[in-house]
């Protein structure tokens, strides 16, 4: 699973079961942010920080992908941890290379200031969200 450092889910693949990806994204971002800060406080910060959480049936890695993204990988517990760690860090590096390449032209987003009604559209959408409850 790939998220932004702010916790927004970008993409996920594999067996997700009933996992709530939105909540998981926010927790992964919080977890990495806290670990990075601990590393800074203790003078041990370096790029491509990785967190390992060992479980009974699966293990989970949380790895930095440059300054903006986070890679979360869950593996079965019969996979060698050292090997998985190497692969995940390599994947993180490759993802960062992709991020650093010039993107293809994106379609333009009509959020220009001339779109005066845009804030009103958001307000209406929120009104709808609120009034549709219960």
């Amino acid at each position, binding site marked *: 699973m790939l998220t932004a450092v702010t916790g927004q889910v970008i993409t996920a693949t594999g067996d997700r079961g009933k996992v709530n990806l939105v909540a998981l994204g926010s927790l992964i971002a919080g977890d990495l942010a806290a670990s990075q800060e601990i590393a800074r*406080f203790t003078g041990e910060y370096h790029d491509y920080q990785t967190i390992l959480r060992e479980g009974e049936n699966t293990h989970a890695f949380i790895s930095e992908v440059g300054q903006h993204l986070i890679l979360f990988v869950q593996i079965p517990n019969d996979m060698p941890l050292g090997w998985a760690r190497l692969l995940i860090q390599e994947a993180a590096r490759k993802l960062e290379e992709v991020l650093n390449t010039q993107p293809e032209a994106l379609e333009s987003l009509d959020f220009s200031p001339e779109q005066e009604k845009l804030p009103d559209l958001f307000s209406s959408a929120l009104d709808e969200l609120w009034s549709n409850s219960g």
Partner: protein
Amino acid sequence: MNINWQLRELNLKIVYYGPALSGKTTNLEQIHANVDPQRRSDLVSLKTSEDRTLFFDFLQLELGMICTLTPKLHLYTVPGQTFYEASRRLVLRGTDGVVFVADSSAARVNDNLLSWEKMKEHLDSFRMPMVGLPIVLQCNKQDLPDAITATALQTIMQTNGCPFFESVAIEGKGVFETLKAITRLVVEDVQSEVA
């Protein structure tokens, strides 16, 4: 702001910041209770055993499609207790806007001021100057006997003219108005960034 072109999502992060026990989590609880359950996530709360926020609360709202994208609001709170300063800073990272939830009690004016100043320091540390960042001041707990008015509080706090609202979050008063106001400011900011 983050746009996921594959999923056609516009993601915006809004942080509820403020001193301890000012009502940040209550705001999210009220929003969670009052919006369409199909269009919101579960409320994620990392709490201590005393039911105080340890790291953050999180709630995602999904709006209807606008300009071919589905906007999603990611709402976070920070822990208010003084000794969680480092955690507060982390939650602010990458935010698109801030709701500052102030405690309107006259006895807590200094707590509001200290929290506001610390927020400024944290934003500066991320090279996100407070000037220019969408901020809404919510003057909560207006039902307290010693509550001071929102006008008086924003004058004391010198909030640089940011919009302010009176609220009693525990009764849901002012919660939605605050959310709408910060969303509007964030959208206007995004527009000026994209332009």
